[in-house]
């Protein structure tokens, strides 16, 4: 927006690598300047920083002992008090500690599942858009098929079939949520590949691999990034859902798992809101924060979307 438009190479004879780095930095600054004007996006970023901090410092603030059933500090199902600000669960464990400890699993699964999903989506999208022909047709049929499958039902089915572990959950969510990314990336790849510089790269002897990794990938990357942010938020929701249905890893503490335990312990019928409310709020706030960031990134990249600031 501001002074970054002057070509950095004007001053000194910089090497190509240095030039590339300077340009990259300039475009990052430009991106940040535009992102800053989205207040909702900044709010999302601040919330995320808060949760990331809680997750990273959890070993220092609460420690892994908080999940121990045998060394629970309190009596079962205590209401909130000075010692336990959010009360205790059915084993007498500190719910505030469990909530903070659960941040780690929920964020980890959200990030890993989104990473898996975006990698599959980008790979399918770029190769389909690059090679075209029969391969493209077949891949897009497969994509369409995944697109019409009810994601949640398929994820539940996969989680049922495989053993109960974090890897299973990541796989079940990642494998079911990639088709939208693949479609978007393919469309973008087609647009990029029709540009003259791709023809030039090919004329200079650039192979498939070179064109895809050096020219197409950098161009679809921003799109993939925005898509990833949005997928993280739905992955966190999906993780909570699977855990709530009893398909999560029973040995780790996660927000969805806490809700499932609360329901099994009869917190609903006895009206123990302190057992139920905090994990749900945590899920909603993190999911919302990622959605806000994703929408801000999207509207920076594509101002025509008209997202409210």
């Amino acid at each position, binding site marked *: 927006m501001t002074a970054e438009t002057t070509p950095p190479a004007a001053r000194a004879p910089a090497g190509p690598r240095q030039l590339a780095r300077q340009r990259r930095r300039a475009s990052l600054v430009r991106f940040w300047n535009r992102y800053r004007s989205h207040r*909702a996006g900044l709010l999302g970023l601040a919330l995320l920083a808060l949760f990331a901090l809680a997750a990273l410092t959890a070993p220092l603030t609460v420690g892994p002992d908080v999940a121990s059933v045998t060394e629970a500090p309190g009596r079962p199902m205590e209401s909130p008090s000075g010692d336990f600000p959010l009360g205790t669960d059915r084993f007498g464990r500190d719910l505030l500690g469990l909530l903070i400890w659960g941040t780690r699993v929920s964020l980890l699964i959200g990030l890993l599942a989104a990473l898996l999903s975006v990698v599959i989506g980008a790979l399918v999208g770029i190769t389909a858009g690059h090679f075209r022909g029969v391969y493209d047709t077949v891949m897009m049929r497969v994509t*369409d*098929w995944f697109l*019409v*499958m*009810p994601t*949640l*039902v398929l994820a*539940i*089915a*996969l989680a*049922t*079939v*495989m*053993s109960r572990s974090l890897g299973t959950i990541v796989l079940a969510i990642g494998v079911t949520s990639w088709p939208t990314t693949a479609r978007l990336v393919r469309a973008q790849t087609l647009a990029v590949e029709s540009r003259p510089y791709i023809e030039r790269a090919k004329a200079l002897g650039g192979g498939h691999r070179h064109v895809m990794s050096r020219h197409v990938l950098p161009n679809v990357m921003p799109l993939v990034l925005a898509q990833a942010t949005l997928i993280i*938020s739905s992955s966190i*929701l999906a993780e*909570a*859902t699977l855990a*709530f*249905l*009893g*398909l999560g890893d029973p040995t780790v503490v996660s927000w*969805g798992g806490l*809700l499932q335990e*609360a*329901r099994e312990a009869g917190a*609903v*019928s*006895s*009206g123990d*809101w302190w057992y*139920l*409310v905090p*994990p*749900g709020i945590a*899920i*909603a*706030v993190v*999911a*919302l924060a990622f*959605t*806000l960031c994703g*929408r801000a990134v999207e509207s920076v990249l594509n101002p025509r*979307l*008209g997202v*409210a*600031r």
Partner: protein
Amino acid sequence: MTADAVSASVVESGGAALAAPPDRGPRRNRAAYLRYGAGKLGGAVVSLLAVLVTSFFLFRLIPGDPVKTMTGGRQVSAAQLASYRREFGLDLPLWQQFTDYCGKALTGDLGTSYQFRAPVIDKITEALPNTLLLTVTSFVLYTALGIFLGTRAAWRNGGPGDRLNTGLALALYSIPSFWLGLLLIIVFSVGVGPVPGLFPTGGMESGGETGFAYVLDVAHHLVLPVVTLVAVEYGQTLLVTRSALLDEMGGDYLTTARAKGLRDDLVRRRHAVPNAMLPTMTLIFVNLGRTVAGVILVETVFSWPGLGGLFYQALSVPDLPLVQGLFFVFAAAVIVMNTLADLLYPLLDPRVGR
């Protein structure tokens, strides 16, 4: 085939009514649409078959012996195990089980449930009306609400109402539906503090009522699940309607309409919204299909006797034929709705497809 014949006769009569030369256009358009429709229908049938095959092989991957699960760890003689295997056709080789399964599925027989000892198709048809009651009621409400609020948010783009609505929709969209359901149960069924329990905690009927009292009773049970679904789902409709209308806002025809002296309200309702509805229509159909699958959680939380609740029960056993059958039904709902959207879209928007 009958559809072809009907539209062919329509084409003929249409052609006869018009003057001689210009009827080539519409006829070619109809033919193009029929080809397009046939392609979409063919695609849908292929998708359904693919789902059928997937649901068979996916659930065979479960480690462990289904017969052992069925007997639930009780002491059972080898002879009895063998008879169970024969009863459910599990003694046959996999490929033969598969051909049997496909052959039966085509005649509407989805196998026998392990836990209920009843045909899967019966369990599904039993639960389907309950799920439809819940789904269709919430679908109508959240679509109406989403479109109503979405058009208003877009019309006053950037204003306080827009920001409040969009923010609220995003926030509700981020809430896990089962959690919202549990909270509603605590607040409105169990009761918090001075608030008494207003609504039943779950199920579909109290039992014993007949006639009009029964209808009221079911409606009473319906309130909380519907509120949960509407709250979680209306946000998406709102956002799509809003962005579709924003795309139309710059249109010259709106300036023309205003220049004619039409009131702002009329410009919105008569001119802008009908055009913005086109992209929204697709989403609405897709949503209906997805909601059928999405009710699994809400039905589980509210013990609603529908497909979702049945799916949850089947998962916990796991009752393979039932899980398999329900998986097929959920996927089929989405596929059918998508296909309907594809077929309707060119009819609604003359610029597309024809």
